[in-house]
């Protein structure tokens, strides 16, 4: 020991160390610094580490604390336990120093007059990979690495520099500074104490440096889950505790270290960021992130008084103003950037983990950290530009995208036994009304806003679902390609153009449903979620029930997808596993049917016109042909060439995918083929009343084949290198070109700001009709191509539907799901059939007896929308009626005014059956409560325990488990 050298005491805090401890101790033992002592503080190990220490560092002091405590509190023991030290070297027990590290740190501390100096931290197993070289943080205290974890160390970061903070693996701290600042904040039991201490040191005027010449290997055992977190006072339970601790300590540091005026400016931003994180977390299923963000505030608010004291202490030591400290902070918001990618990966909780993921080499394409932010930003810009007009003025009421009415109207329609549709019937209300009402209530009792959000929001929701379903593929490129390709499909834009809300909902739900089915099968890389099977079925059922409430055809289509998965598994001999998916689909369908009770009962009751709910087909010549369907276009025309181009990328895994890539490629293509064939057969009317909206089928096909394209990306990364140069490379190039062309083609949809949807609705052109827009006590008859009628319609003839709406403008949302039995409205069909067959020239009279004043025959789906050829026989027969007066209003709709209209002989509307409906409502509420409670409770019980991934080679699997 050289007494000339300033004494340095290495304070090693340990708790239940693993096998790595010996390496760490040898690192200290090998130091060439001449005046180094070692103090080992055992913060509550179950096994006394003293013998292990003594074997390697016989001169070390071991201090065992009588009760477990966090790192900060344990390290602070040095303040009282050590006298005369010039520096403390605060060390974790999973850090192994290079032999010259301490000497270099001390030299730099003197050379730069630094208060805190940190080394370059490299990976434990591969020291050529950098973990951290100092850190920055944004204004909210969210750490921002200055070097990308996993980056190859080529001495590119080897200059000494000031940093905002040095991570806590190894930190050389001037002892007087440590004492002056009262050490670490002992309230921060784990995580974040390094940021907080360095921040306070900066405020106090001390320099914080990184000296990369000094190097240490860091295992990050706690962060990576190799060492379970201790059950300490103040540490919350649950697998998200790490994220919770980080969030609360980051916020505490910010609240403590900012001056008063700076805090006034920053505080609203912090609140906004947290709200955004909570909202995104809730709506993306990342409840842990949402909960962590919210609980950070409650935890800190509960400590308000203590926090104020800490603030006063910090202020009393302030030597630098905030704006100087801020110079070392990162600009912008790391949290908002993380929302785009990091949040969904739980990046904040797994930053070191992600570093390891990159080190493992399993997740190819992780070497461009800005990709996710860039891709998601572009996606967001695309969605915002394409939706700009629609967000401003709301979607026009086209076909099934009808207005919500008032909040009271929504709930009133749901709780009433009498549907106002048709000629008024006693029929259970569809659950979609309740869901829409709840969303409206959540959004500030604003049904208009809710409608806009629920229509436009289907696009990002679908994109997010595509991203999520690609998570287990363990490829960032694949994950990022997923939303891009899915959004490039022509389907959602056609759905907006034609006003097909059911298709939009199917687009939003399809990738989520596909992911659940994949998880149910459990074929790699989709692991089965922990917990009992019924929980998976119930999850699927809940999603199917919600989506099926808006688009009932989704439920049988999910069964078709299950069949497709089984068929596609035959070549790989894994049909048995896929049978689990099919079983899950069946069980989910049953659950969805139960959750939609009693509305669902009516759908399968004898005599019900199921096609009224599933949707009527237009005339065969007006349906999409094979070419359009293969291009994911549910109607003739459109931009199906975009879909054709995308197919080039979707087919890639079939050509050179290996192992599970090929297996899933075959399965997903089988799903696509099943959906296409059924869509085409259904469009031709060969399935009778079981008319499947082609949009719903194409949504599932699109989701499946988008996933196939993502798997193609993985195959490109992993499998293509195993082949010699040849046709496979050509196919991969063609796939890339196809996807590129498809994506470029899809950009055109964003041009008009409405995704091609009409900007006006029929109310605007019919407002000149007497009494149309005022509730004048009469009904209106819409007849013609079902795609142009407001809401759903009953079948008059093949390709011709009719719908009766109550005067007072276009009907509300409830018209999307009329009672399957037309009831008294059948009389309308009878009258129209008489007119079409020439057996009456006075059809106005029977229509008048039903209270119908106007007959509308749309020639487009909305003013300015795509054209619909009205049925010529119908138009001719209506034109022949002596008591129907044609009224020229607008080319988009033929209007006939009933000259015999009167109200004298209207049939009485059915009276509400209040008691019966009340019982039904109670039962519905009970069912939903049971379902949600079951999912929530079992999620807690069977949540996968934290710990190292069983397959570290594919770490993204863990993220996929969130599916």
């Amino acid at each position, binding site marked *: 020991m050289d007494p000339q050298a300033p004494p340095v005491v290495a304070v090693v805090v340990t708790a239940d160390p693993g096998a790595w401890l010996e390496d760490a101790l040898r690192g200290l033992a090998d130091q060439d610094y001449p005046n180094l002592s070692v103090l080992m503080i055992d913060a509550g190990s179950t096994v006394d580490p003293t013998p292990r220490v003594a074997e390697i560092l016989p001169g070390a002091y071991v201090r065992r604390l009588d009760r477990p405590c966090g790192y900060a509190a344990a390290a602070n023991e040095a303040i009282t336990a050590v006298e005369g030290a010039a520096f403390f070297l605060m060390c974790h027990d999973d850090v192994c120093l290079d032999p010259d590290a301490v000497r270099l740190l001390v030299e730099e501390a003197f050379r730069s007059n630094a208060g805190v100096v940190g080394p370059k931290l490299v990976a434990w197993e591969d020291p050529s990979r950098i973990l951290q070289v100092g850190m920055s943080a944004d204004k909210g205290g969210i750490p921002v690495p200055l070097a990308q974890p996993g980056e190859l160390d080529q001495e590119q970061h080897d200059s000494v520099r000031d940093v905002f903070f040095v991570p806590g693996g190894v930190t050389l701290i001037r002892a007087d500074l440590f004492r002056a600042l009262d050490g670490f904040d002992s309230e921060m039991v784990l995580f974040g104490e390094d940021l907080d201490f360095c921040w306070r040191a900066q405020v106090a005027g001390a320099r914080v440096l990184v000296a990369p010449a000094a190097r240490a290997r860091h295992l990050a055992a706690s962060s990576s889950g190799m060492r379970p977190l201790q059950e300490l006072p103040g540490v919350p339970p649950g697998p998200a505790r790490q994220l919770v601790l980080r969030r609360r300590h980051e916020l505490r540091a910010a609240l403590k270290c900012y001056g008063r005026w700076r805090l006034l400016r920053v505080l609203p931003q912090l609140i906004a960021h947290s709200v955004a994180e909570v909202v995104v977390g809730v709506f993306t299923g990342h409840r842990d992130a949402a909960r962590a963000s919210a609980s950070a505030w409650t935890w800190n608010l509960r400590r308000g008084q203590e926090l104020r004291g800490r603030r006063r202490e910090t202020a009393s030591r302030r030597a630098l103003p905030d704006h100087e400290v801020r110079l070392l902070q990162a600009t912008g918001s790391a949290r908002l950037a993380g929302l785009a990618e990091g949040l969904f990966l739980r990046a904040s909780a797994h930053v070191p983990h992600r570093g390891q993921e990159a080190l493992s080499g399993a997740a190819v394409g992780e070497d461009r950290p800005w990709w996710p932010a860039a891709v998601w930003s572009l996606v967001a810009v695309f969605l915002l530009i394409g939706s700009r007009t629609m967000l401003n003025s709301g979607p026009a009421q086209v076909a099934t995208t009808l207005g919500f009415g008032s909040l009271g109207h929504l709930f009133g329609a749901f709780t009433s036994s009498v549907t106002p549709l048709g000629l008024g019937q006693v029929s259970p209300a569809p659950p979609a009304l309740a869901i829409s009402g709840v969303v409206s209530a959540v959004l500030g009792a604003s049904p208009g806003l809710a409608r806009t959000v629920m229509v436009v929001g289907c696009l990002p929701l679908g994109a997010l679902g595509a991203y999520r379903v690609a998570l287990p593929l363990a490829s960032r490129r694949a994950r990022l390609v997923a939303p891009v390709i899915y959004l490039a499909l022509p389907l959602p834009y056609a759905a907006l153009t034609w006003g097909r809300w059911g298709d939009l909902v199917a687009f939003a739900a399809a990738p989520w449903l596909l992911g659940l089915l994949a998880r149910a099968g459990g074929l790699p890389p989709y692991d089965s979620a922990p917990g009992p099977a019924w929980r998976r079925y119930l999850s699927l059922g809940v999603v199917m029930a919600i989506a099926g409430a808006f688009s009932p055809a989704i439920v049988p289509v999910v069964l078709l997808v299950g069949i497709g998965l089984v068929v596609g598994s035959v070549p790989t001999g894994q049909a048995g596993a896929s049978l689990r998916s099919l079983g899950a689909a069946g069980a989910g369908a049953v659950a969805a049917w139960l959750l939609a009770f009693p509305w669902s009962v009516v759908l399968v009751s004898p005599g019900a016109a199921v096609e009224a709910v599933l949707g009527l087909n237009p005339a*065969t*010549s007006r349906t999409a042909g*094979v070419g359009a369907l293969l291009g994911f276009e549910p109607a003739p025309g459109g931009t199906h060439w975009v879909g054709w181009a995308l197919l080039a990328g979707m*087919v890639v895994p079939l*050509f050179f995918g290996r192992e599970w890539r090929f297996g899933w490629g075959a399965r997903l293509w089988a799903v696509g*083929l099943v959906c296409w064939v059924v869509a085409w057969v259904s469009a031709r009317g060969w399935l009778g009343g079981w008319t499947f909206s082609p949009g719903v089928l194409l949504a599932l096909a699109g989701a499946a084949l988008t996933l196939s394209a993502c798997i193609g990306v993985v195959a490109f990364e992993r499998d293509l290198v195993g082949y010699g140069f040849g046709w496979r490379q050509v196919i991969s190039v063609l796939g890339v070109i196809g996807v590129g062309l498809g994506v470029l083609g899809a950009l055109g949809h964003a041009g008009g700001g409405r995704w091609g949807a009409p900007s006006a609705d029929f109310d605007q052109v019919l407002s000149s009709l007497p009494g149309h827009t005022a509730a004048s006590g009469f009904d209106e008859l819409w007849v013609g191509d079902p795609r142009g009628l407001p809401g759903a319609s009953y079948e008059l003839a093949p390709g011709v539907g009719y719908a009766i709406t109550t005067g007072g403008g276009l009907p509300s949302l409830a018209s999307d799901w009329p009672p399957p039995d037309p009831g008294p409205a059948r009389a309308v069909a009878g009258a129209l059939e008489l007119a079409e067959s020439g*057996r009456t020239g006075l059809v106005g009279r029977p229509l008048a007896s039903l209270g119908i004043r106007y007959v509308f025959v749309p020639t487009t789906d909305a003013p300015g929308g795509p054209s619909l050829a009205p049925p010529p026989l119908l138009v001719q027969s209506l*034109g022949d009626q*002596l008591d129907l007066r044609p009224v020229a209003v607008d080319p988009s709709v033929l209007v006939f005014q009933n000259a015999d209209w009167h109200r004298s002989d209207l049939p009485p509307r059915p009276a509400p059956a209040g008691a019966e409906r009340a019982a039904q409502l109670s039962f519905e509420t009970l069912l939903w409560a049971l379902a949600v409670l079951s999912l929530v409770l079992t999620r807690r019980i069977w949540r996968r325990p934290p710990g190292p991934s069983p397959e570290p080679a594919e770490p993204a699997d863990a993220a996929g488990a969130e599916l």
Partner: protein
Amino acid sequence: MSRRPVLTFVSVVLAAMAVAGWRLDSGAGYPAPGPAAVTTVQTSAVDQEWYCSVATAVSGGQAAGEIVLANSGGSTLTGTVTVYGNQAAAPASRAFSLPPWSRAVLGEQPVLNAPFVAATVVFHGGGGAAEQEISGPLGVSVTPCASRPSATWYFATGTTRPGASLVLALFNPFPENALADLSFSDPQGPSAPAEFQGIFVPSGGLVTIDVGQHVVQVDDIAATVRVRTGRLVASELQLDAIPNQSGLSLVLGAPAPAGTWFLPDGVEATGVSDSLHLYNPSSTAARVSIDLNLARGQAAPFQLSVAAGSETAVDLAGQTRIPLDDPYDIAIRARGGSLVVERTVTAVAPSTRTGTAAMLGATAPARTWLMAAGGASSSQDEWIDIFDPGRRAATVRVSYLAGGSDPALTGLRTVTVPAGGRLALRMGDHIQLADLSVLVSSSVPVVAERDLYQVGSIGISTSLGEKVS
């Protein structure tokens, strides 16, 4: 796992879909409405409306109108006749009740007094038919009423020669106003006089246009009525007070041109002039073949071309290929464009029948025809001509509405019409009944024409019956 079967399966399914789509995707759309038949009796109707052509309804009128109502069903029919005038007078209605298998005649002047009138007939049930009969010093004419309106009406012939009066009547019994444009075609070519554009026909109104006031002294003129907005029923009243060529005719317009026309009757005889008027309102020239099926042999067909928008008259009189007193039926087929075909007959001494007549041809045959108006008496001679344009001989039953039943006429319970041939039946040989409504029922589709000849006075009427469905 093998890659080849999967790729093969996917390729085969995609190829099969492509082939199936190519073969089937251009499938049926909405069913197109059938030919625009405007004179059809609906036996199963819950109500049926008829729109009857123009007539005069003043004392001394040249074409005093009567509505002939017939009930060809087994139930009593009630209904209403409403007569509309061309002047400001409000329409007037009369209710009626028709026993099964019966007919009635309602004079229009007693209902409403106006220079010109038209009428609607509403039957509350099926099987009812209505025809418009006019009579005056220039003779008599019968034409079916229309069972539906149309957006276009075509008339293949008319004349505004000195002594002739051509009246176009635009009848709008519907609840909305109508605007119509008129255009003409004469030997000088097509024209659309400005004064005939945008003719306003109010709801419940009748507008009559004396074409001769504007298109002066034209021997042969075809007309088109296009309804710009609203709905109309158009008819043409021709009054000829020309020396040796007097008569009157009332024709309901043709709602659409067609490629095939049938005329069951024609004859070249001394004093009788028979002409075909071919009007091509389409935008392309029509190549026309006129086939005459003589009762005693076959005449060489006429081949001609009718330019787009023009009218051509084929004077069958004096054609050497047609023997005298050898009646014939006519089938006219057009390729390229489509036609409207009318036949005019002018009979003068030494013919025992005198007068003029005009009638539209039939575009399609039917199994049952009803001729509501007519009569076989000492003052009127009624003939029924039945033409079978098909390839199978027709077995025909000819009956009449006897009030409570429709017995077959004596000797006409079962008669045969040869395939492609015709049969002319003189009603007076089978029954003597002044108010005679005849039903022709056939085993195969045929075309039936009714000809009325006034005995001892001027007057010829030729017209098709009304189809019964």
